C-alpha cells in the first residue's frame, strides 16, 4: 500500500521506517490526507505481523509545522451552517470532526507496537502531539529542534491529547506553563521536561530510534497501566492544593480571563487528570470543540494566523516588480532605534553601514548589537561564530561615502525636520540612483520629508517599533509620490529581517501612533471624569491592553504629548476646542515638570525598576469619585471602542486600506487586545450597528470624541461588516484592476 504523504519501508529487523515527506511543500503539515495516511499506517503497523515497531521521521529539514488551521475553518463553517436547524447535530459534528486526530493518536498509542518519533527540527502543535503519542522520542542534537504547542497563541489549545500527555509526563508547573504560554523548547529543554527521551546527532537520529526499539520500547504507556501516578500526585492531595489555587490565580493575572483557549487548557487539565486516558481525551475534545466555537478563537485565527501569514508573504507587494536581493543597507543615526535596526539587519545576514556624526557615536551604536548578541550567546541562542559574523557585518562610520553601494538607506535620526533634511541630502549625494531612501519617522508626514529629496519616488517611510529586536511589526508609509519600487524594496527588506509589514498611506501619526495616542488620551479623559487613577490603569489592562494608558503616557513622555497637543492646537487655531486634557497635561508638564519615565516622575513615581502612582494626581485632576460611580465593563469598553473608532476614521481617510493590516498592525504594533482579533475585528465582532450605537451612547455620556464617522454610520444601516465591505480578496482584485 502507498500513502500520499508518507513512505513506509520495513527493514530486515521488522522495523517500519515511516518517512513523512509531503510533495510540493517546504514543510509537513497535518491536513485531511495526512490524517487518512496516519490512520492507515497505524492499522498496517498493528496488523502486519512482520512489523515489530516503527520509527516516524521527516523527509524534510524540519519535522512538521503542525495542523493546517484552514481545516478547522472549514469545519466551523459547516458547524455554523447547521447550527440554527439542528443545534445538537451541529455540536456533534464539530465534536467528532475536531477530535479525529485525537482518536488516531490514541489508536497509535494503544496499537500494541512501539512507535518512536525521530524529531529532526521544528515540531509544532499537532506534530508535537503526534510525537507525544508515540512511545518514545529522540530529538536531534543542537538548535535545530524547536518543539512547541503554540495553539494558545491563536486562541486555541492543544486538542489532540497535548494537554493530557504533557501533564502526565512533565512536572505540573513547567508542564502547565508550556501549555499556557505556547513557549518553544529546544531539544535539551524538552528532554529536561521529560517530553523527549534521548538526544542524538542529526545524522544518527533514525539509527538511534532503531537502537531504542531494539533495546525495547514499552508499547504500553505508563498511564495505561495499573498504579500509574501523576508526576505531582493527584489534584485532591496536599500537593494539588498547593498547585491549583495558584495556577488559577496566575491564569487570571496573566490573561484577565479574556482567553477561552487558556481557560480551556486549565479546565481540561483539571478534569482530565482525574480520569483514565480515554475519558480524559474525551473531556479535552469537549473543551476543544467549545473553544473552537468562541469568537475569540475565530478572531485570533484570522488575524494572528491567516492574515499574518499573508502579510508576511507579501500580500501588499506590487507583483510586477522582481524581488530585490538586498546585500547592504545604510542606517543614518546610531541612536537607540538606529542601533536596533542595525542589529536585526545584520542578524538577517545583510551588511550594514551604521552612520553617525562621529566615529564614537557610530561605535556606540554597534556596541548595542554586541550586547544583544552576547546575551544570546550566553543563553545558548547563538554561537560564538554567529556573534562574530553578525558583528563583522556592521561597519560603524561617520563617512557618508560608504553608502555608495547600499540598496537601501534607513534614516533614524532625531525627529527634527532640519536634521532630517541635511542627512537626506548628504546621503542622496552618494547613493546609487536606484537605491531607496526610507525614514523611520514615527510622527512627521513622509510626503513633507520627501520634499528634501531629489527623488521622492524612491522615498518611503519604514517605521520600526521599540525595542526593534522584540517588536515584530514594521509600518511602511507611502508618501504622495512614493513609487512601487520603493514599496517592493521596503517589503522585501522587512521580509528579509523576518518581521510583519503593514502598508499605510501618509498622514499625521500614520496608523499605529495615531490610534495608540487615543488610548492614552482616553486615560486622561477618565482622570478628568474622576475615575481613580489605579482603576484607569487596571481597566486598561483588563480590557486586554499590555499596559495602562497613564503608564504608556509616561513611557511616550508627557512633554511630547503636550507638544503634540500644542501643535495641533496651533494648527487648528480658533477651531480647537480646549478640553480637560489640555489642563491636565499643562499642569503636569509646564507647572510640575512631570515628563514621565524619562525624568523619573510622571503619573507614576519611578524608583529604579519599581514604580507607583504619584499620590499628587488628585491635586492635578481633582479628587476622584468613588469607584462605585463607574462601571468596570464600560471603562474597558471605552478604551477599546475609542481605538477601534479611530481606526474606522483612518479607514475612511484611506490611510488604511486593508482590514488585515488594521487588525494585525493593532495587535503587533501596540498590543491591542489580541483576543478581539484587532481593532477592526473588534468592531465586526460586535457588528457595525451595535458598535455605532455604542459610540452614540458614549458620545452622549462621555463626549463628542466618540461620534461615529460617516463610514460607520453608512455601514451600520445594513450592519455591514468591514471584512465584507473591505474583503481582502476583493481589495486585491480592485487594486489589480486599478
Amino acid at each position, binding site marked *: 500500500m502507498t500513502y500520499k504523504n508518507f513512505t513506509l519501508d520495513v527493514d530486515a529487523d521488522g522495523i517500519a521506517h515511516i518517512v513523512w515527506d509531503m510533495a510540493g511543500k517546504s514543510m509537513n503539515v497535518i491536513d485531511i490526507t495526512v490524517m487518512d495516511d496516519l490512520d492507515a499506517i497505524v492499522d498496517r503497523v498493528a496488523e502486519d505481523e512482520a512489523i515489530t515497531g516503527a520509527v516516524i521521521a521527516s523527509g524534510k529539514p524540519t519535522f512538521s509545522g503542525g495542523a493546517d488551521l484552514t481545516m478547522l475553518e472549514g469545519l466551523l463553517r459547516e458547524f455554523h451552517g447547521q447550527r440554527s436547524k439542528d443545534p445538537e447535530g451541529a455540536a456533534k459534528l464539530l465534536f467528532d470532526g475536531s477530535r479525529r486526530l485525537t482518536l488516531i493518536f490514541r489508536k497509535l498509542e494503544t496499537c500494541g507496537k512501539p512507535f518512536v518519533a525521530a524529531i529532526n527540527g521544528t515540531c509544532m502543535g499537532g506534530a508535537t502531539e503526534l510525537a507525544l503519542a508515540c512511545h518514545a522520542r529522540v530529538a536531534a542534537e543542537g538548535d535545530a529542534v524547536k518543539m512547541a504547542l503554540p495553539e494558545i497563541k491563536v486562541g486555541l489549545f492543544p486538542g489532540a491529547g497535548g494537554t493530557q500527555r504533557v501533564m502526565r509526563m512533565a512536572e505540573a508547573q513547567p508542564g502547565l506553563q508550556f501549555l499556557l504560554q505556547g513557549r518553544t523548547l529546544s531539544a535539551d529543554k524538552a528532554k529536561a521536561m521529560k517530553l523527549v527521551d534521548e538526544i542524538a546527532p542529526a545524522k544518527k537520529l533514525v539509527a538511534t530510534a532503531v537502537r531504542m526499539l531494539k533495546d525495547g520500547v514499552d508499547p504500553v504507556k505508563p498511564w495505561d497501566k495499573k498504579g500509574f501516578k501523576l508526576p505531582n500526585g493527584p489534584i485532591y492531595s496536599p500537593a494539588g492544593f498547593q498547585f*491549583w*489555587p495558584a495556577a488559577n*490565580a*496566575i*491564569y*487570571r493575572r496573566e490573561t484577565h480571563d479574556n482567553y477561552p483557549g487558556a*481557560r480551556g487548557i486549565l479546565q481540561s487539565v483539571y478534569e482530565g487528570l482525574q480520569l483514565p486516558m480515554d475519558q480524559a481525551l474525551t473531556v479535552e475534545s469537549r473543551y476543544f470543540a467549545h473553544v473552537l466555537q468562541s469568537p475569540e478563537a475565530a478572531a485570533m485565527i484570522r488575524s494572528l494566523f491567516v492574515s499574518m501569514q499573508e502579510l508576511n508573504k507579501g500580500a501588499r507587494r506590487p507583483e510586477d516588480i522582481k524581488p530585490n536581493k538586498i546585500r547592504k543597507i545604510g542606517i543614518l543615526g546610531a541612536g537607540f532605534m538606529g542601533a536596533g535596526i542595525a542589529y536585526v539587519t545584520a542578524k538577517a545576514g545583510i551588511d550594514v553601514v551604521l552612520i553617525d556624526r562621529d566615529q564614537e557615536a557610530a561605535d556606540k551604536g554597534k556596541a548595542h548589537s554586541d550586547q544583544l548578541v552576547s546575551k544570546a550567546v550566553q543563553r545558548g541562542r547563538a554561537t560564538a561564530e554567529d556573534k562574530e559574523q553578525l558583528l563583522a557585518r556592521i561597519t560603524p562610520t561617520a563617512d557618508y561615502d560608504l553608502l555608495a553601494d547600499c540598496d537601501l538607506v534607513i534614516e533614524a535620526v532625531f525627529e527634527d525636520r532640519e536634521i532630517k533634511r541635511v542627512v537626506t541630502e548628504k546621503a542622496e549625494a552618494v547613493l546609487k540612483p536606484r537605491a531607496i531612501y526610507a525614514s523611520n519617522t514615527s510622527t512627521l508626514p513622509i510626503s513633507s520629508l520627501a520634499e528634501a529629496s531629489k527623488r521622492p519616488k524612491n522615498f518611503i517611510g519604514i517605521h520600526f517599533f521599540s525595542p526593534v529586536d522584540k517588536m515584530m511589526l514594521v509600518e511602511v508609509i507611502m508618501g504622495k509620490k512614493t513609487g512601487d519600487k520603493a514599496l517592493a524594496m521596503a517589503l522585501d527588506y522587512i521580509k528579509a529581517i523576518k518581521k510583519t509589514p503593514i502598508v499605510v498611506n501618509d498622514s499625521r501619526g500614520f496608523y499605529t501612533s495615531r490610534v495608540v495616542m487615543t488610548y492614552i488620551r482616553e486615560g486622561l479623559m477618565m482622570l478628568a471624569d474622576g475615575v481613580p487613577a489605579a482603576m484607569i*490603569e487596571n481597566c486598561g489592562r*483588563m480590557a486586554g491592553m499590555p499596559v495602562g494608558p497613564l503608564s504608556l503616557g509616561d513611557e511616550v513622555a508627557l512633554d511630547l504629548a503636550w507638544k503634540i497637543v500644542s501643535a495641533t492646537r496651533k494648527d487648528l487655531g480658533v477651531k480647537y476646542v480646549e478640553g480637560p486634557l489640555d489642563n491636565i497635561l499643562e499642569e503636569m508638564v509646564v507647572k510640575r515638570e512631570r515628563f514621565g519615565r524619562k525624568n523619573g516622575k510622571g503619573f507614576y513615581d519611578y524608583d529604579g525598576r519599581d514604580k507607583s502612582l504619584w499620590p499628587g494626581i488628585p491635586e492635578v485632576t481633582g479628587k476622584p469619585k468613588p469607584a462605585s460611580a463607574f462601571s468596570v465593563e464600560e471603562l474597558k469598553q471605552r478604551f477599546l471602542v475609542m481605538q477601534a473608532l479611530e481606526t474606522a476614521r483612518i479607514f475612511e481617510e484611506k490611510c488604511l486600506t486593508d482590514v488585515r493590516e488594521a487588525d494585525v498592525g493593532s495587535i503587533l504594533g501596540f498590543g491591542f487586545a489580541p483576543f478581539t482579533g484587532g481593532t477592526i475585528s473588534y468592531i465586526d465582532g460586535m457588528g457595525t450597528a451595535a458598535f455605532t450605537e455604542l459610540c452614540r451612547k458614549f458620545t452622549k455620556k462621555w463626549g463628542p470624541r466618540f461620534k461615529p464617522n460617516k463610514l460607520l454610520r453608512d455601514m451600520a444601516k445594513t450592519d455591514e461588516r468591514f471584512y465584507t465591505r473591505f474583503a481582502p480578496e476583493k481589495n486585491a482584485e480592485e487594486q489589480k484592476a486599478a
Partner: protein
Amino acid sequence: MADALIFDHVRTPRGRGKKDGSLHEVPAVRLAAGVLEEIRDRNTLDTAQVDDVVLGCVDPIGEAGGDVARAAVFAAGYDQSVPGIQINRFCASGLDAVNFGAAQVMSGQHDLVVAGGVESMSRIGIGASGGAWPVDPQVALPSYFMPQGVSADLIATKYGFTRDDVDAYAAESQRRAAHAWDQGYFSRSVTPVKDINGLTILDRDEHMRPETDMQSLASLNASFEMMGAMGGFDAVAIQAHPELEKLRHVHHAGNSSGIVDGASAILIGNRRAGRKAGLTPRARIKAFANIGSEPALMLTGPVDVTEKLLASAKMSLSDIDLFEINEAFASVVLRYRQAFDLDADIVNVNGGAIALGHPLGATGAMILGTVLDELERRDLNTALVTLCIGAGMGTATIIERV
C-alpha cells in the same frame, strides 16, 4: 409559629490547634460528646425527648467524617432514638446549626433539639476536606478564589485600615478576653474537658496571649504578602477591585483568629417541651438570615446579612444592644463597625477569636452563647450574632431574652 427558645448553652475551652495543644489527644467525636453529656447532665435531660442533634463541622473528614453528630450521640450515651446531622457552611456552621435546629422547632416539626458544632483543627487540619472551590477553574475563577488572609488584607486596603488599626484591634481583643476570664464571665458556659477518669485535660482557653501589646504585634511579619505576590492572589484581588493599585498586607497570626480545637452545644426547644423537661427558657431566637456576598472581599458578608436580617425582622440597628461578630481577621470587625458606624463598646465586648481562637464549625454556637451570657450579666435584651464565611457568605441571628 412556635418560639425557638434557648434553654442552655455549653462549650469546651479552646485548645491550641497544634500537636502540642491540650486537646490534641481528644478525638473530635469525644469533644462533641463531651458537650452533649454536659448539656444532658446539668439539665437532667431525658435524651429520648431530643428530636435531633445538629452539629456544624467544616472539615468533616476522617474521624469527623460521615455523620459526626450521630457518632457523638453514641459516644455521649444518648438514647438511640436521637438522630444526628452534620452541616457545613464553613465558618458559620455552628450558628447555622443553631438556626437549623431553631427552624425545626419554629416550624413545629421538632420539640427539642441540641445544636452546636465541633472542630478538632489539631487532629484533622484546616482544609483537609478539600472541595472544588480553590482548585476547579469553573469555581475558582468566578468566585475570585484567594486565601482568606488575602481577602482580609483586601478589606483593609479597600476600607482604609492600617497595620496600626488592625493591631490595635487585636490588642484590645486580647485585653477584653483576659478581663472576661478574670472576672469569671465565661464560667457559666465553659465546661472542662476531662479524661475517662475525671481528670481535667483543659479548663481554660489556651490560645490567649493577654500580654499582647502593639510592640509585640509590630514584630510579626505580614502572613499573606508572599502568597499574594507569588501565588497571583494580589492580582486576583485587584482585578476584582481595580480601583486599588496595590494590596496592603496587614494581617498576621496576631491579628487573625487562632487555630484551636473545641465544641459547643445549645439546647433549643419550644415552650411545651421546656415545661415538660422542667427547663427555664433564657432567650428566644427571634430571626436569622443567610446571604451570599461579593466573593473577592469574601469576608464582608456580615454587613450584607445584617442589612438583610434587620429588614426581614423589621428591626433597626438601635434595637440591638450587643453585637457579636466573629473575629476571623481584625479587618472583618473593623469593616463591620465602620459600615454601621457602631460604637466599639457594644461589639465583641468580651473579645473574640483573635484572642480565644476559632474552632471553625463550633464557633457560631460558642459566640451566641457568649453574648447570651453577657446580655444576662448586663441585663440587656437583644443581641445580633454574625460570622463571615468562606467563598463570600454571611449568617446572622438575632436573639432576645425572655
